[in-house]
């Protein structure tokens, strides 16, 4: 007896190959690993609501060229008298191309004395970083800095 040989038709083969390729393309993790400028705008809207964000009063400091994106020093200063009547309520930091647009939110008040905070952040790509501050009168002010990153964070395997 001859062994039965199953011959795969060209059509079956193409259907199967197409299915495998589609499976790779639809991997949700791969699609979700980079935020976009739109995602950043949405994250900013979620914080400021319908208020207008103006440039000025905020000074965001980051090194212009970053060798290692795993720890980048960031400092934000806001030009504010920090009195009970006029103070900074919050400072939010957003990035354009990290996996998530939000970086950090600082909540301070008149007891801070000076609106000046510093931390270290991760940067996944060459991109711009935005700091937005909320004043006690309800206005929002921003500053943005473009950073060149040579070694990105979040990419290494462990």
């Amino acid at each position, binding site marked *: 007896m001859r062994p039965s040989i199953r011959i795969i038709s060209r059509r079956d083969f193409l259907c199967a190959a197409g299915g495998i390729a589609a499976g790779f393309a639809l991997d949700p993790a791969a699609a979700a690993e980079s935020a976009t400028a739109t995602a950043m705008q949405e994250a900013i809207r979620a914080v400021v609501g319908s208020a207008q964000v103006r440039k000025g009063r905020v000074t965001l400091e980051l090194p212009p060229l970053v060798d290692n994106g795993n720890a980048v020093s960031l400092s934000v200063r806001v030009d504010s008298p920090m009195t009970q009547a006029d103070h900074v309520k919050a400072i939010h930091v957003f990035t354009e191309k990290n996996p998530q647009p939000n970086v950090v939110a600082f909540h*301070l008040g008149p007891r*801070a004395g000076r609106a000046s905070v510093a*931390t*270290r952040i991760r940067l996944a790509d060459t991109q711009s970083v935005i700091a937005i501050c909320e004043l006690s009168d309800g206005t929002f002010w921003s500053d943005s800095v473009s950073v060149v990153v040579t070694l990105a964070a979040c990419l290494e395997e462990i």
Partner: protein
Amino acid sequence: MAGALINVPASARRGEIIEIKTLVSHPMETGYRRTQYGTVVPRDIIRQFVCTYNGEQIFRAEFHPAIAANPFIAFTTVATESGTIAFLWTGDNGYAVAESVKISVA
């Protein structure tokens, strides 16, 4: 347990603006990294940092995965009275570290 380093001047004049620097030991695993077998390493980060001065909250920060490992935070406050400045970090998987320092205000 994970340690925290805190730098606060031991004494200050009343009304002086003092700088507080904190560093806490934590890997801040983003949840975006993969092992060599392709499995995602689950997220494990500190979510919140709160600083209180004699029981009153003076500073709070909310962290996202983009904060570097071993979070460093520097901020300022007005030295109003002698007492305790307390720090609390809370995060994923029940992480909580509390520290406090004494300050004398003349």
